[in-house]
């Protein structure tokens, strides 16, 4: 076959009438397919920074509506895993699916956030120069393109939604205070509130009780357990007491891969885990 025939063949292939060009195809529906009761599929994830394997063939499956705790020593890959799920880092290999249809690796942070994956940072990050109310308004589930944002108005139902969340996170009194003036614990709560107000399907929460008083920690535990069921929550935490108080299923990460998974009791009696993680703590204590 000549080169000419080849190119003709290529053209025919391109202009086949029984298919639609990818860029013309309608946007994939935003619906999240959880018919297998599974909301997050992380498979064979590898990511290395300058030779250091931050993620090493990591596999993780999270059920829809589950409250999952991720624990692991520093450098075990917890935060890196969150970075990959939320689109901040791209892995060298592997796949991450949200529901059965949404390939998260092809999307950027904004897309992933709009799909309904909310993330709380390790260090509480709120918009300090703006009021608590504005912080929540910005986080509402709305059209977040430039022009619609310019002409956006708060609808009564959105105000109700913000009030509802303000009640949940206990910041009703502080609604018109600048977020920068809040205490550390309150900022943590506000950040969780910012996730809640956007009505997410999956919440990734990095160290929610760092720097909180015992009382605040208790309330946070209540809040997170109440969220599970309707939403899926993944919590990264160092505070073992806290993990024990909320967790149904715990996943232990070690050197970029999953070391063990199970209930808190199973984990605590797991030999490997005792050796690499709890063991160290026990020795220290």
């Amino acid at each position, binding site marked *: 076959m000549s080169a000419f025939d080849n190119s003709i063949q290529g053209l025919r292939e391109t202009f086949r009438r029984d298919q639609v060009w990818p860029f013309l195809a309608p946007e994939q529906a935003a619906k999240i397919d959880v018919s297998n009761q599974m909301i997050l599929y992380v498979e064979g994830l590898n990511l290395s920074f300058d030779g250091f394997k931050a993620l090493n063939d990591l596999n993780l499956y999270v059920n829809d509506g589950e409250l999952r705790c991720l624990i692991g020593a520093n450098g075990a890959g917890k935060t890196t895993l969150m970075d990959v799920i939320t689109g901040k880092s791209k892995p060298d290999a592997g796949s991450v699916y949200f529901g059965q249809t949404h390939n998260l690796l092809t999307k950027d942070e904004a897309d992933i956030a709009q799909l309904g994956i909310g993330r709380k*940072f390790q260090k509480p990050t709120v918009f300090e120069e*703006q009021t608590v109310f504005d912080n929540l*308004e*910005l986080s509402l589930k709305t059209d*977040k*393109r*430039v022009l619609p944002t310019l*002409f956006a108005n708060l609808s009564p139902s959105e105000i109700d939604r913000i009030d509802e969340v303000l009640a949940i996170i206990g910041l009703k009194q502080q609604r018109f205070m600048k977020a920068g003036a809040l205490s550390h614990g309150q900022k943590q709560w506000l950040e969780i509130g910012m996730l809640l107000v956007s009505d997410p399907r999956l919440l990734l929460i990095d160290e929610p009780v760092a720097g909180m008083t015992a009382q605040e920690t208790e309330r946070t535990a209540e809040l997170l357990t109440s969220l599970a069921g309707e939403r899926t929550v993944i919590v990264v935490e160092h505070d073992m007491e806290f993990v024990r108080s909320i967790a149904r299923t715990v996943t232990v990460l070690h050197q970029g891969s999953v070391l063990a998974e199970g209930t808190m009791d199973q984990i605590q009696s797991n030999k490997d885990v005792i050796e690499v993680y709890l063991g160290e703590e026990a020795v220290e204590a």
Partner: protein
Amino acid sequence: MSKLINWFSEGRSSGKYTLPFVILLLAVTVLASAANLLLPQDSALYVSTYSITLLGKYLCYAMLALAVDIIWGYCGILSLGHGAFFALGGYAMGMYLMRQIGDRGVYGHPILPDFMVFLDWQELPWFWHGMDQFWFAMIMAVLVPGLLAFVFGWLAFRSRVTGVYLSIMTQALTYALLLAFFRNEMGFGGNNGLTDFKEILGFDLQSDSTRVSLFIITAVLLAVVLMLSQRILSSRLGKVTLAVRDAEARTRFIGYRTERYKVWLFVYSAVIAGVAGALYVPQVGIINPGEFSPINSIEVVIWVAVGGRGTLIGAIIGALLVNYAKTRFTAIMPDGWLFALGALFVLVTLFLPKGLIGLYGQLKSKRQPASSQEVTS
């Protein structure tokens, strides 16, 4: 208690001074214009045409400062190259004014501007066509800076260049344009730039009434731009802008494509700078590559810092005050001005991080806490 919080947070919104400021600005404009046109020259209240032009020039600078403040004060993008957009707007106006000269130039060529005749060019370069139409030139004054800002912003913000690296790039941008416009082959008059303008839309540029009209138009446009910007920045888009400034990653993770916001705000700001440049040239009577000089752009940043970044009125006040001081200082001690400017910047950065507007706020809150505490407790 909550009512009190409510009231305070309303009082904090920066928009409430905008309308009084606009009224003040327009009132001064009308009074100064009337004093120039209606009063006899020997009257004590007469405002000279020189002063009117000077005021018009200050207002153009104020508009440029406003443009820089929008992206620096509100979005945290420190542009050290905004003079480039200002100069491009100015060149568009300059080209129109150049074509208006017609055959009244030194060489008397009916179409070619003097410098082209001097360079022995035979015909008009393609980009000079259409510039004899005022509307076309004005579209260019807005379009060219806007387009450059779009391309630059799209490349820079999409690659997530931020902070000092971005500032250096903007500086390089304006410096590159400076070098390019210095070249005679570019067709913009080389280092002499464009000058010797005669009239605008048929009105003599030297006459008092034209000068006063230009001054009034500048003041009105400044007021319009101020109110429009205030409106934009108090919308939800303004809140997103502040969010990008304070915590860009957070903003991205709640679903905003921050680079798009930054690009459009950058374009908006560049267009304002272009308009300011276009108003500046007929009043000053010349545009040359010196306007692209990086030092000019840095000066703008100082005006904004002095006035108070993150407050639109602050930027305007800063530009007016510093330029007035410059006019005075350079008359008394021409060599000292740059030192004074440098000292001013250091002092403002150290002692007035929020500029003069911030100082006003500090003085006000110093008197208030005592009384507000009583009410709270």
